[in-house]
């Protein structure tokens, strides 16, 4: 499936934003991901063509930045902090509880396609430790406890 016309137009426009096609690559990747959740090979190639860069140049950037997802992800991506401050406040127990509840490990997606779990460095929420950010708007949630994941998973916590 190719990119929607308005997304194609936005990517073309990004070429003229700041510094030409090269800096527009990350912007394009982010836009594709915002709409589709992840960046497929086909979409990456299509965007590269729109920007007039090679697929290799686009891949070069897409594979460096860790929050550009190159595999399908669930409806909601959970970025679970594994930083020291979260660990000091019971982060491991929360991690184990989330994994047990969802039945997946880091880098995996639930069978129903609802959640993808990813570990991330400090999310800047140490005052909410243990913390996570969830969804495409990266909502910060915490402090999480192993017994109560409702803040993170809503009804799916039960």
């Amino acid at each position, binding site marked *: 499936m190719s990119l929607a016309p308005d997304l194609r137009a936005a990517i073309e426009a990004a070429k003229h*934003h*700041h*510094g030409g*096609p*090269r*800096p*527009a*690559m*990350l912007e394009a*990747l*982010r836009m594709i991901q915002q709409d589709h959740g992840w960046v497929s090979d086909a979409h990456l190639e299509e965007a590269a063509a729109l920007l007039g860069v090679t697929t290799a140049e686009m891949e*070069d*950037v897409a594979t*460096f*930045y*860790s*929050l*550009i997802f190159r595999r399908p992800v669930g409806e909601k991506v959970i*970025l679970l902090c*594994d*930083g*020291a*401050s979260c*660990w*000091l*406040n*019971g982060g491991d*127990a929360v991690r184990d509880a989330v994994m047990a509840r969802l039945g997946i490990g880091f880098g995996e997606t639930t069978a129903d396609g609802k959640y993808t779990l990813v570990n*991330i*460095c*400090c*999310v*800047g*929420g*140490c*005052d909410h*430790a243990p913390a996570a*950010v969830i969804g495409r*708007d*990266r909502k*910060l949630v915490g402090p999480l406890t192993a017994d109560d994941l409702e803040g993170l998973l809503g009804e799916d916590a039960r």
Partner: protein
Amino acid sequence: MTDKPLTGRARPDRRPHTLEEWRDLGGYEAVERGLRELSPERVLDMVDEARLNGRGGAGFPAARKWRFMPKPGEAPGDGPNYFIVNGDEMEPGAFKDRILLEALPHQLIEGAILAAYATHSTEIIVLIRDAYRDAIRNVSRAIEEAEAAGYLGRDVLGSGVDVRMWVHPSAGRYIVGEETALIEALEGKRAVPRKRPPFPAQSGLWGRPTTVNNVETVSCVSHIVANGSNWFQGLSRTQEGGTKVFAVSGRVHAPQVIEAPMGTTAAELIEMSGGVSGNGVLRCFQPGGGASGFLEPDALEVPLDFGHVRAAGSMFGTGTLIVLDETACPVGVIARHMAFYARESCGWCTPCRDGLPWAAKIMADIEAGAGHLSDLDILRMTVQVGGPRGRAFCDLMGGAMSPLGTGLDRFGALFEQHISDKCCPVARDHGRAAA
């Protein structure tokens, strides 16, 4: 408000002010005064006299960095000077810039306009980490408002100066926060640090003169211009000017952001954060985020600023404290840090790319009770190779070696006990203490 100039106006729910609301609080008066009444050189001198040190980690004097920026026509070739605000806050334990970005975007814009003026920059870019979506949105909106009000755009306030400002949302990777890596990122490349020299002020973004400053540093500038250098210097208890937006987390009852005079002690900050949690007895703390060396209770009364913390054997860094009580294991904390730095290495140079995962694996083994005494020699060698004056290309590995090196020095017996007892002795003796 005056004792907390940076955060005093933040709303508890962090809802940002509209431009009108901000102006009602005195906002943009400093910009009007600066651009209408002061020369760029005068603004720079004021920041110099205020002794504003960079708040991103290195503590380099902001004005000294700005003085490297050429005046219009001085740099060869055509094109603007760039002023970049570094909002890639990802240091473990750091969450101080978040509030400044989310709740106080107009304060940041004011500071950026004045800093751009002082550095002869006409393009301002704010790079913000992906996880701070509220910050990206709030700063972007505030920029639109400032443009509509004539504080940004063509001929700002009749000064004859054109200033454009925009937000670059990043997409992960801690190394983006290194200033030359950040420039690479803005150019649309992998964020691999550049060799210095040339320094960014000579050849930065797209080869043009560029200054990169941390969010908190920039947020100080309008206050210096509004209230004067002496006032700013007077906020501090030490020779380094201003308040500091500290952050305290880890084993404290109420982890939080605290704006307090530069030179406030860890004892005071920990008390303001509700005191030590766990068993209530402090074992150690990192004064400046994950990349700062461990200090012990004898350093509780050290005035926290760049000079004093360096003299105490650590690094003030981001001024964000990670606190450990006696039931928290520093070996475990170091293991988390090593995993973090190993994962976030850009992979460019061998000591960092290969050394950090090695250190991370050894730390994980030791923590799990599967370590050997000879591992400690390997860790010490890694510290030697990659430490602050070591052989890595940039400071990422040096930073990572600070907690490891000071941890081995200060808690060597605890490392050895993990190995001899084949488990974490702290967890064994205390269980997982409630925080």
